[in-house]
């Protein structure tokens, strides 16, 4: 290592002169005068290490070192840099210390592959000697070749440390280092300058080419070669620079492979999987658009703002959120817009968001609505006609049956069983049918009206327990059989939930004062109430402590399925045409007791099964702040039995 150090100094003059003479003799060399200065510097790099590189860089950029790089000498340099033990030239690794503005490290390689081996070797030798800073290149070409070996070795050690970048496609490193042929540098070098034949690829280079060809092969199944895959993988890692890449290597591997085979779709075509999302977004966009009625419409809207039936969902949602119940604010807002749409479409007097019922495939959003006076829809009347038609058919069937039986000599005993009389359903706007209910599956979808509920449906609904699927026309398969489809079952459940759980603080509602109500109703109690203007609010602690401070403000549903008692036998007598004797005998058995339920505005403390109700388990510290506000929320009802919303 120490030998070359004094050498550079006397060299500057000689090589330059000699090189200039040699220039015309080399076909690809264009060494210019300034170069020797650099060549002096170059050999110093092994000793000074990277510190010299920057200075070299400056020098190099000023001169046409580019020519130098294009020449084969560089190949030798690169090769030297690559192999720590030996200097044989093979394509590939750039010489880092000389990598100062060299445009392409690959240039030497093609040159090499083109077959100008002989010239390249000569030049490489010259270069080596330049490194050494020794004398005439020609002279050293032959003689000092072997002497330069140890120096090469020393230089290679230094270069090895600077080797950071790998030329593409050359799997060097362990492969090359383990190649036994590399150990024998002298012998290899020995025949290099002496072969005058057409250069055959060297064994190592051949090995490299073989390896690369092997990696580049693709199978019939896939068009991705391992070589390309590794390139992609390493490029990805270097670009993304994840932390701890070794631990996620396998996943990255898998991802890269997948990306190759599943490229992103064409930008012109929509992603088919996201279609429903876009559709839903389009539909909901309609919610946010105001009705385009023009100038008049806008003025009308301003006037109607005070009278609008749309409830303030966001406010109630805020209070529910304080209690830990409720939907996200985003969903609440969409529900608000959907209700607004409903109010615009139907003649609605008051509207309230009743709640959400979860179903198997879809959910239901329920709105409780009261129509304006006299605005009964035609749908209701059609439904009633159908029912009456159905009832009219039955008596005919009975008469025909009787005639047949009389003809037969053996009188088959008539069955004693008569189907229980159908309890008539309640009028609209009273009892269980006090409100109309509209449902939709998602905000943005059209609202569907639910039919009125019949007492029979309520009675049957009490006996079964089924999940909702989300489709209103789905049949309910159960035992005892439910008369109706999912829409009816839903309506029945809504009626039961409303009757059982709608409560308000004591005193918020009061009875309107009308005398003689109790007697007329036959003990069924009043069924109307109004807001109490003098209500002052009850302190929260009292509300939480005792159940007596909360009252129901919906009518209790009797076991019959109605809110007001109706004796089914009364109607039956009017319709009877058969023998009276039997009827009279039956009457004695069928006396039905009048059913009585707790009157309206009964406090919760009177509820049966009080263990099922909890005293506002969610009462948090924020509750005192919100509920003692002077402004009362318009509907101060809470549903502590929230799990019932499952059904």
């Amino acid at each position: 290592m120490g030998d070359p150090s004094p050498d550079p100094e006397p060299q500057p003059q000689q090589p330059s002169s000699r090189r200039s003479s040699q220039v015309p003799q080399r076909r690809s060399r264009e060494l210019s005068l300034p170069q020797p200065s650099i060549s002096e510097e170059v050999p110093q790099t092994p000793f000074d290490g990277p510190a010299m590189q920057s200075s070299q860089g400056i020098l190099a950029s000023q001169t046409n070192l580019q020519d130098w790089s294009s020449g084969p000498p560089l190949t030798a340099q690169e090769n030297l840099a690559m192999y720590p033990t030996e200097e044989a030239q093979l394509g590939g690794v750039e010489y880092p210390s000389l990598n100062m503005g060299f445009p392409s490290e690959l240039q030497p390689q093609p040159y090499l592959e083109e077959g100008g081996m002989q010239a390249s070797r000569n030049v490489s030798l010259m270069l080596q000697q330049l490194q050494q800073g020794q004398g005439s290149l020609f002279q050293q070409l032959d003689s000092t070749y072997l002497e330069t070996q140890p120096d090469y070795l020393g230089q290679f050690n230094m270069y090895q440390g600077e080797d950071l970048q790998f030329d593409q496609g050359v799997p060097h490193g362990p492969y090359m280092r383990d190649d036994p042929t590399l150990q024998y540098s002298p012998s290899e070098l020995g025949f290099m300058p002496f072969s005058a034949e057409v250069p055959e690829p060297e064994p190592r280079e051949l090995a490299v080419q073989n390896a690369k060809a092997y990696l580049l092969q693709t199978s019939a199944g896939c068009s991705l070669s391992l070589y390309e895959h590794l390139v992609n993988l390493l490029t990805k890692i270097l670009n993304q620079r994840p932390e701890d890449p070794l631990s996620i290597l396998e996943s990255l591997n898998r991802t890269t492979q997948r990306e190759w085979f599943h490229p992103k779709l064409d930008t012109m075509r929509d992603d088919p999987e996201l279609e429903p999302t876009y559709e839903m977004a389009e539909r909901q966009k309609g919610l946010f658009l105001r009705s385009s009625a023009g100038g008049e419409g806008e003025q009308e809207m301003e006037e109607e703002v005070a009278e609008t039936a749309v409830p303030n969902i966001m406010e109630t949602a805020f209070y529910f959120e304080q209690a830990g119940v409720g939907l996200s604010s985003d969903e609440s807002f969409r529900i608000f817009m959907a209700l607004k749409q409903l109010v615009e479409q139907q003649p609605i007097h008051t509207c309230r968001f009743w709640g959400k019922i979860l179903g198997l495939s879809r959910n239901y959003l329920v709105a409780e609505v009261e129509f304006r006076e006299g605005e009964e829809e035609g749908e209701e009347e059609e439904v009633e006609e159908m029912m009456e038609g159905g009832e009219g058919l039955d008596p005919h069937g009975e008469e025909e049956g009787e005639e047949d039986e009389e003809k037969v000599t053996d009188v088959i005993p008539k069955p004693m069983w008569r189907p229980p009389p159908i309890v008539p359903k309640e009028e609209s706007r009273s009892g269980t049918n006090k409100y109309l209910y509209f449902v939709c599956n998602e905000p943005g979808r059209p609202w569907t009206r639910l039919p009125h509920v019949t007492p029979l449906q309520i009675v049957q609904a009490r006996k079964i327990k089924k999940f909702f699927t989300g489709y209103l026309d789905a049949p309910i398969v159960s035992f005892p059989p439910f008369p109706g489809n999912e829409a009816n079952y839903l309506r029945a459940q809504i009626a039961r939930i409303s009757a059982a759980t709608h409560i308000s603080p004591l005193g918020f509602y009061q009875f309107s004062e009308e005398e003689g109500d109790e007697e007329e109703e036959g003990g069924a109690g009043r069924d109307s109430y109004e807001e109490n203007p003098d209500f002052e609010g009850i302190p929260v602690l009292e509300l939480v402590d005792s159940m007596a401070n909360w009252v129901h403000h919906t009518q209790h549903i009797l076991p019959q399925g109605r809110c007001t008692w109706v004796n089914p036998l009364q109607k039956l007598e009017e319709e009877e045409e058969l023998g009276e004797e039997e009827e009279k005998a039956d009457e004695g058995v069928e006396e039905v007791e009048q059913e009585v339920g707790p009157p309206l505005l009964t406090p919760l403390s009177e509820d049966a099964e009080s263990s099922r109700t909890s005293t506002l388990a969610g009462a948090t510290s924020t509750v005192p702040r919100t509920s003692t506000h002077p402004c009362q929320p318009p509907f101060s009802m809470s549903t502590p039995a929230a799990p019932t919303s499952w059904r």
Partner: protein
Amino acid sequence: MDAESLLLSLELASGSGQGLSPDRRASLLTSLTLVKRDYRYDRVLFWGRILGLVADYYIAQGLSEDQLAPRKTLYRGRGRKLGNQDPGDVVGSLNCMEWSLLPPATEEMVVQTSVLKGRFMGDPSHEYEHTELQKMSEGEKVFEEEVVVQIKEETRLVSVIDQIDKAVAVIPRGALFKTPFGPIHVNRTFEGLSLSEAKKLSSYFHFKEPVELKNKTLLEKADLDPSLDFMDPLEHDIPKGSWSIQMERGNALVVLRSLLWPGLTFFHAPRTKNYGYIYVGTGEKNIDLPFML
């Protein structure tokens, strides 16, 4: 759900109607961070809330590096500290940031508490009284005697949480992977399920040690990837249809709800990393499930 993405997760899981009030959310964020530091957990999950008559329980779980190792469960009641004789303010004491560690569940606990029905009270020291007929033998006589067994609510809480975990805790396929050495790790390159996968029950697994995996035929096992498919999928749960799978917001969110333990909601936004499950309910199993379907 992961305590780190608590707010977003609560937002996504809010479709079931039960959530947390803002003050609870805020206190949870801070207290869960402290739990993670104190107990040195790798991940802390907010498991959910069990509603009781008087008070609710907030449950959290801590996971160590190996995701399938037995999890430590912590709970937090309201207004009472164990061992502290203060009556506790029912109107919510926000200083109740203390989490207590629950003992791990054992078989006997589960058997013992299977007789208890009804809602939770909300007080961990509440004792249920259950009368059992036990056969006592005195000499040669064998007679039955009624024995009143006292079971603490804490035990019941432990067994219920354990049952829910074993039955319905869900994780999407690909979120965890198994290393050749055995431990299970979180998959940092999990990019979410694709939409077509998200609609199938087979892409979701039970978050527990596999039970049915070894019963699969070789043909089925050939299609599985051992680093990803090492847990039981939801597909073969009995009874069939005990999971309700819905897409919300168009196709932007998948929500799975268990019908066996009503109140358990699992959500996942396809093509993103967000997923999680939370249980908010009364802690009662729905034994009428086969009739309700």
